[in-house]
């Protein structure tokens, strides 16, 4: 099956991307997008283009932010403008509009566009002073669809079935994919030279963006993992642990998925180290964990606490997420008329015993026989992710089994679960699909299956190195081309 270009819905900047972009564009660290309406989550991801809509509230928040940013930006007017408007006002403003506009809209402005923005300034000047009128220019840039959206029109070609991207568009694609921000000066320079048109040029830039120190790329990959694993609402120290672990593993560490899923070490704040009951961190920050208890992301408190209730574990949710989020399996909803009762745990029993009822009832068993045997093997971890051998004085049974996967069979406890997950080709393929969703800002469809299959094959051949997966993803038609608008 040939790889197809697929859909490329118009993407709007997310809150994170907006903040990163104004930081790069205006050197403004106020993070105004924290005040915006939250991005709509699509299975955890904040950047699904099909969920992005601008209602009146968000439009108003954009206006407020643009005004505030423009006031800050014009405090030092000569620096912003790069010229002295008191000497040659018209020429100074036009050069500012051209130069600032090219960075704000991430492409050169046409002559008509320069005139159009200059007319905002001219109208402003009939009533207002130079700084205020300049603020209006900055606002016009920041409220434009060319700033708020990642507009991709492609290189026009008569009769084509797919379009290639301009180098300017490719610069933004790469930059927002890997950094969650506007292109840096090297990408802009490459775009200026029209040097982002071949797969090799694109690949070289992708690798450059992820090479040391790559702080922005590290944040972007940490964002992928926290959104994929739904860690958005967990306590900051726990989330930070997982983020740091991901960053250090991918950047300068082994870099592969298996390590992420099995490492018997982490990087955590002292409070979290205490929760682990582990010895203090080494000089390089690494915390060595008990390899009989801990193995990678699924045994970290951020994950375990996210899929737990405030005061007790929730083996169904843990099992369900691993089944859906890591194996890309599906679970039908409970029958609409089913009376669902979460079991209470009487003294002298374990959570597992309480949940046995799920599999006794045929209506429940259909799904729970898949989810529960996964989740119950994590019962060694309480609601906060602390290790426990017994519950209510009864030793915990953490035997489980996987069914319907490529690593089926019985196993015992969290570490064996992690090893099975890490060994599964199905999980590798699912991680590729999740990364595709994040990278392209949309869900994968049946049309994309050849692409994700191809990427999975590449990923596995390359020892499942996550940064290499990102490079591979820039080399497929979905990344290098655009569909013709319909």
């Amino acid at each position, binding site marked *: 099956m040939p790889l197809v270009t697929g*859909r490329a*819905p*118009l993407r709007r900047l997310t809150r994170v991307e907006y903040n990163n972009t104004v930081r790069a564009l205006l050197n403004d660290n106020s*993070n105004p997008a*924290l*005040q915006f*309406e*939250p991005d*709509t*989550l*699509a*299975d955890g991801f904040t950047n*699904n283009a*099909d*969920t*992005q*809509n*601008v*209602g*009146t*509230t*968000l*439009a*108003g928040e954009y*206006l407020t932010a643009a005004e505030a940013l423009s006031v800050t930006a014009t405090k030092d007017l000569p620096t912003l403008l790069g010229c002295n408007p008191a000497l040659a006002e018209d020429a100074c403003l036009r050069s500012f509009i051209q130069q600032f506009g090219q960075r704000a809209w991430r492409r050169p402005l046409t002559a008509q566009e320069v005139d*159009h*923005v200059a*007319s*905002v300034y001219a*109208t*402003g000047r009939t*009533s*207002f002073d130079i700084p205020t009128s300049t603020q*209006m220019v900055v606002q*016009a840039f920041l*409220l*434009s*669809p*060319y700033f708020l*959206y990642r*507009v991709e*029109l492609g290189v026009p070609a008569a009769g084509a079935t797919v379009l290639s991207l301009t180098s300017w568009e490719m610069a933004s694609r790469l930059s927002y994919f890997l950094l969650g921000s506007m292109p840096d000066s090297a990408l802009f320079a490459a775009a200026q030279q029209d040097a982002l048109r071949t797969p090799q040029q694109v690949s070289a830039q992708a690798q450059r963006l992820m090479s040391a120190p790559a702080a922005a790329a590290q944040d972007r990959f940490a964002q992928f993992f926290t959104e994929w694993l739904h860690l958005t*609402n*967990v*306590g*900051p120290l726990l989330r930070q642990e997982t983020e740091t672990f991901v960053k250090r593993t991918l950047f300068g560490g082994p870099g592969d998925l298996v390590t992420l899923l099995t490492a018997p070490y982490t990087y955590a704040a002292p409070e979290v180290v205490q929760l682990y009951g582990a010895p203090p961190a080494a000089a390089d920050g690494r915390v060595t964990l008990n390899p009989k208890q801990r193995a990678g992301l699924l045994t970290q408190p951020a994950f375990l606490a996210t899929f737990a209730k405030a005061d007790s574990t929730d083996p169904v949710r843990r099992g*369900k997420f691993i089944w*859906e989020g890591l194996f890309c399996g599906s*679970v*039908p*909803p409970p029958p*609409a*008329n*089913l*009376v*669902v*009762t979460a079991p209470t745990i009487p003294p002298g029993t374990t959570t597992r015993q309480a949940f046995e009822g799920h599999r006794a009832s045929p209506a429940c068993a259909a799904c729970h026989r898949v989810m529960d045997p996964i989740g119950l093997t994590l019962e060694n971890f309480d609601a906060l992710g602390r290790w426990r051998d017994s519950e209510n004085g009864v030793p915990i049974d953490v035997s489980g089994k996987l069914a319907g996967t490529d690593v089926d069979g019985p196993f015992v406890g969290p570490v064996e679960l992690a090893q099975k997950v890490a060994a599964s080709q199905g999980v590798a393929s699912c991680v590729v699909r999740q990364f595709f969703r994040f990278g392209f800002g*949309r*869900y994968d469809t049946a049309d994309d299956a050849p692409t994700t299959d191809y990427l999975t094959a590449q990923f596995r051949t390359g020892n499942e190195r996550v940064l290499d997966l990102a490079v591979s993803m820039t080399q497929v038609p979905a990344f290098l081309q655009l569909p013709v*608008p319909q």
Partner: protein
Amino acid sequence: MPKRFIVFFSANGTIMQSWAPTGADAAFTFSPILTPLQNHRSQLLILRGLNNEVAYTSAGSNPHDLGMGTMLTGISMKVGPSGLGRANHIIDGSAGGPSIDQAIAASIGKASRFTSLSLGVQSTSTILEPMVTRMAYRGPFDPVIPQDDPGKVFATLFGNTLASQAEVLNAQKRRGTVLDAVMADYTSLTSKLGTDDRAKLDRHMTSIRELEKQLLMTGTGTGCGGITPMAPAVSLTPVACLQDGRPATCVGDFTTIGKAQMDLMVLALACDLTRVATLQWSTAESTVVHAEIGTTLEHHKMSHDDVTNVSALTKINTWYAQQFSYLLDQLSATKGADGATLLDGSLVFWVNEMSRGTDHNRRDLAYVLAGGGGALRTGRYVTFKGDPHNKLLTTFLNMFGIPATSFGDPSYTGTLTGLT
């Protein structure tokens, strides 16, 4: 004819045996859950027995999605390209058409500075399933997302009114110039895009036009029935909230925020800044822990077993009746510009995405109407025998002078008799 329309939402169904009044018509006796409303008896029309049939035939699968997305729209939902996700919630879909509040606002909202006002109490935060977080839509894929922060609501409503006249005029001039230029960018871009992207930008442009309207209509927002607009004492702090873990710890006290939102709603109506307002308590499938009345488990979890949890669920629904009563108190204590009380001139609609949480029942719905501007025969309890709730929504349209024989799914035509 009523002048204003208000929607009040609470989630997860009720306990029918404690909600339903006894007796019939004007000779009814208040039930335990509705007892907090007894001071407003003459202004109430309590309805039972309407069915949300669309919620059983709609696209989608999760019962809370289906209840919420069809509750005010009466039409099948739309599933987006991503399909269904966790618990078969729609990932990127939408209601299939405008909600009744927006349909009414499109007619009566023209004359006010804010076409409608959408308020929430812990309604968005960071919920993973978007369909349950919103009930109002301007149209497909165009949700009206409630504002959860009373501080922001106040700033939106009164930021302009409190500024000096010169500042207001200057801001008008600046924003008018900037937004006109920006609109030209959108217009020229949309012509180059495919259908879906064009629709997305068209919706964005509608929002900018609404902003421009708010900007220009500065003559309103004074008088306010003698009330002086005061900033609410509570405001959310999203920055701290993002740094500080779970939403429950960062969204402020449920009761306090709710009261502030109701006060702001009444103020906005008194000032005639808007004539259509909605208040969404939490979300469909609300997971709020109602600690203020001594319950310790999530509302949704408990609603799955209304035998074990009958007492807690009754308490929660009674608590919502108290909040609804507070809103009615304020509406009847405040006079609009015409000298009548706000409640007299308003149609108020208390809705829920289902009637019973335990089996996700979306039939035999438990509705309360209040006020009605003389268009409702109030002071009564009326039971229907399974009419589609679309008929009620169509009746609402007609009450506001909007001619229609159906609302939402066109196969459910007609209006309800016996209400007016």
